């Protein structure tokens, strides 16, 4: 009997361990990839390059909001000083404007121009994979030998998010992996005006997010509408409405989602779900109440731009630590952040904007060593995030950094607002306005959020691309009408579902489910 009990105990323990491995448990004891050696091969490769005096150049491409930054070459040279000394490599930075980044990257990757490392944001990780642009990062133990700092930075599960068919094609960015669903941001000046006492609603005085319910929000919206009849009360950017509001997991796209992602790996049709109906029904009601602008269907301005212009009172956002400061900056006025949904981490958390290596790269070892250094060297990370000390930034005296004298956001030569895209902003210096423990809080936030069981699953839709094109076209036709409340969901929703079905929705979901099952089996997930 005793033996049986201990056996049982062992089994229970083993099962719990498998579950924790599958992505629900927290940091420390999580599995890491194995390293190839004690780091001697990497050190030798670096030393050989330094001894030979021939420094290869590694070109790093990323996206910016303002094209090529003026200080790019200067910052790259500063970075090269570090990389030359440590690994015998020069780096060249290649920032490109968001408007043309995807197009330029596609041309460069297809034409064989030199670009060694690039961020897959906007170009898309799966499209890059489909076109064969990506280098297998584990070829000849590349990562295990020369990227050991990366192995220390990420668990094997996190890295697994960038595997397609078992092959590792990218390294995630250190960022907010979880997001708070259905956050609503409202400038405090409007709340004060209608007499809503939001200040007393924080659970703790240090909190930046107020957790509340729909009754409160709808009551507030009604008051805002009465007070400011000429303003739009609410707007949600249609591109992210579903993904930032509903606590479900959408592996790669909205066609076939996990409605109960914490517990089940069964894919369902989002558009036939109660969850989606409720969302459309709610926005339809809000639209009928006059809270959504009649022009919302053709709106192209960002929500924060509308708030800045004074035409909008409230908008949807995804929350995370630091969100209140971020949105206040974007709106140009202090805001209060309310949250109606849970904090959640979906399957795509690690592959929305990974760093990848061009399959065409001349020197994969050098490129991997540079990437490794970007993840582990605080000085290098600060350079690529914030620029050069004394030119772009200076010590503020309390541990933060701030603009150098005479420099501001307008005239800075390397102030790019794309730190979220850089390999590891967690080790870079912290800018004034953010709390010094921001990254600790971010790590806790990431670790404590509800996590999808499909975390790390990537859907390769190349076999059903015809269906995907048809489905996308149908969804586009209805999306804004339904998700901004212009179409009564009782009439519009069944029509859309019917057309999606005839466009091959069921086949598409079946293919996704088959891949998901195979993935789960390969990764030992129940």
């Amino acid at each position, binding site marked *: 009997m005793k033996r049986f009990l201990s056996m049982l105990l062992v089994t229970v323990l083993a099962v719990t361990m498998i579950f924790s491995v599958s992505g629900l448990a927290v940091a420390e004891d999580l599995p890491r990839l194995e390293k190839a050696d004690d780091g001697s091969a990497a050190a030798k490769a670096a030393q050989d390059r330094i001894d030979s005096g021939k420094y290869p150049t590694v070109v790093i491409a990323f996206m910016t909001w303002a094209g090529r930054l003026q200080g790019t070459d200067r910052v790259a040279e500063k970075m090269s000083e570090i990389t030359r000394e440590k690994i015998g490599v020069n780096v060249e930075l290649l920032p490109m404007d968001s408007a043309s980044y995807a197009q330029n990257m596609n041309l460069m990757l297809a034409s064989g121009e030199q670009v060694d490392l690039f961020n897959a944001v906007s170009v898309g990780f799966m499209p890059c994979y489909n076109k064969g642009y990506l280098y297998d990062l584990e070829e000849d133990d590349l990562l295990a030998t020369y990227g050991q700092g990366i192995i220390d930075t990420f668990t094997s599960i996190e890295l697994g998010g960038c595997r397609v068919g078992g092959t590792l094609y990218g390294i995630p960015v250190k960022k907010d992996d979880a997001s708070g669903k259905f956050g609503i941001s409202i400038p405090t000046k409007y709340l004060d005006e209608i007499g809503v006492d939001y200040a007393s609603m924080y659970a703790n005085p240090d909190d930046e997010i107020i957790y509340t319910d729909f009754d409160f929000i709808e009551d507030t919206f009604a008051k805002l509408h009465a007070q400011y009849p000429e303003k739009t009360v609410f707007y949600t950017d249609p591109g992210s409405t579903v993904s930032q509001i509903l606590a479900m997991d959408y592996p790669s796209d909205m066609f076939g989602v996990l409605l109960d992602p914490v517990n089940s790996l069964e894919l369902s049709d989002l558009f036939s779900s109660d969850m989606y109906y409720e969302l459309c029904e709610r926005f339809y009601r809000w639209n009928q109440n006059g809270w959504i602008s009649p022009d919302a269907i053709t709106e192209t301005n960002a929500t924060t731009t509308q708030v800045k212009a004074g035409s909008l009172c409230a908008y949807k956002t995804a929350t995370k630590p630091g969100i209140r400061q971020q949105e206040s900056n974007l709106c140009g006025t202090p805001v209060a952040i309310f949250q109606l949904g849970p904090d959640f981490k979906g399957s795509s958390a690690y592959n929305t904007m990974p760093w990848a290596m061009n399959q*065409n790269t001349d020197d994969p070892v050098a490129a991997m060593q540079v990437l490794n250094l970007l993840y582990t060297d605080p000085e290098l990370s600060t350079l690529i995030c914030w620029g050069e000390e004394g030119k772009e930034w200076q010590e503020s005296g309390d541990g933060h950094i701030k603009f150098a004298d005479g420099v501001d956001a307008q005239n800075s030569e390397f102030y790019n607002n794309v730190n979220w895209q850089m390999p590891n902003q967690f080790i870079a210096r912290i800018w004034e306005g953010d709390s010094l423990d921001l990254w600790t809080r971010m790590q806790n936030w990431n670790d404590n959020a509800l996590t999808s069981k499909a975390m790390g699953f990537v859907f390769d*839709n190349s076999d059903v691309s015809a269906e995907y*094109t048809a489905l*996308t076209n149908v969804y586009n036709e209805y999306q804004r009408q339904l998700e901004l409340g212009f179409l009564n969901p009782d009439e519009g929703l069944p029509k859309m579902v019917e057309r999606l079905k005839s466009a091959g929705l069921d086949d598409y979901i079946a293919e996704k489910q088959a891949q998901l099952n195979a993935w789960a089996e390969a990764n030992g997930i129940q």
Partner: protein
Amino acid sequence: MSKAWRQATLKRSIPIYLMALPGLIYLFINNYMPMPGIILAFKNYKAKFGIYGSPWAGLKNFQYLFSTQDAFIITRNTILYNVVFIIVNLIFAVGVAIILSELTSKVKKVYQSVILLPYLLSAVIVSYLVYAFLSSENGFFNNSILKPLGKAPIAWYQEQKYWPFILVFVNLWKGIGYNCIIYLSTIIGFDRSLYEAASIDGATKWQQITKITLPLLRPTIIMLTLMAVGRIFYSDFGLFYQVPQNSGALYPVTNTIDTYVYRGLLQLGDITMSAAAGVYQSLVGFVLVLSANLLVRKLDPENALF
């Protein structure tokens, strides 16, 4: 034909060939050199192997164009809009060209520049001009016309029934200045003595137009129409995507082959599938030009293109 004569002709033509050379080079680089790229439509492109080394995909890349009920709608929209555009644009372009040719020179220049101006605007700017008229909340129609008349405002970007007319009108307004240039320059080249003779014989202006101008214009009209027919499977992307503000409610009347391909592949980013769409459009266009020309040759052999 004697050898000497031929040589003399050649000598005389050399400057003309030289003048045409830059255009021919451009045509070769821009239109002929990329032609082997057609092969992409039948490949499963992988950057690692290059265009020629990538594995063959058969007709798989074409599948998505025909696999749904949308295929019918986008084909119908593309062809019908273009047919209407060809007819409407032709009538108005010829009409305006004739009117302009009758005007005295100074006023003519002003008018000609004014009607050409919209052609030079980018589709994005045009879309916002249209938006200024049609916006639900602040638009000119809803606020300055319907409201004073006591009528209910119209949600223009959600009502399909108005858009075929709006698009035809916008296309006409935007293109007419350019379309009439060729007709106008042809008319100006006509022998004025014909008109003088006609007016001496007592022909009215209207008779001069119908009996002299239009018959003389016929070859030009046929040639330009044939060329337009060749592009009947292409649509003006800016007109069908930007001007309706990409409003989903309007897709059934604004979705054409080009916008469908763009929307479908925007996220997929699959170049072989867009290549397939291009090949399909060119092939059908090619067949249409040949058959239209065949028809013209049957009816009026002199004016056939080839």
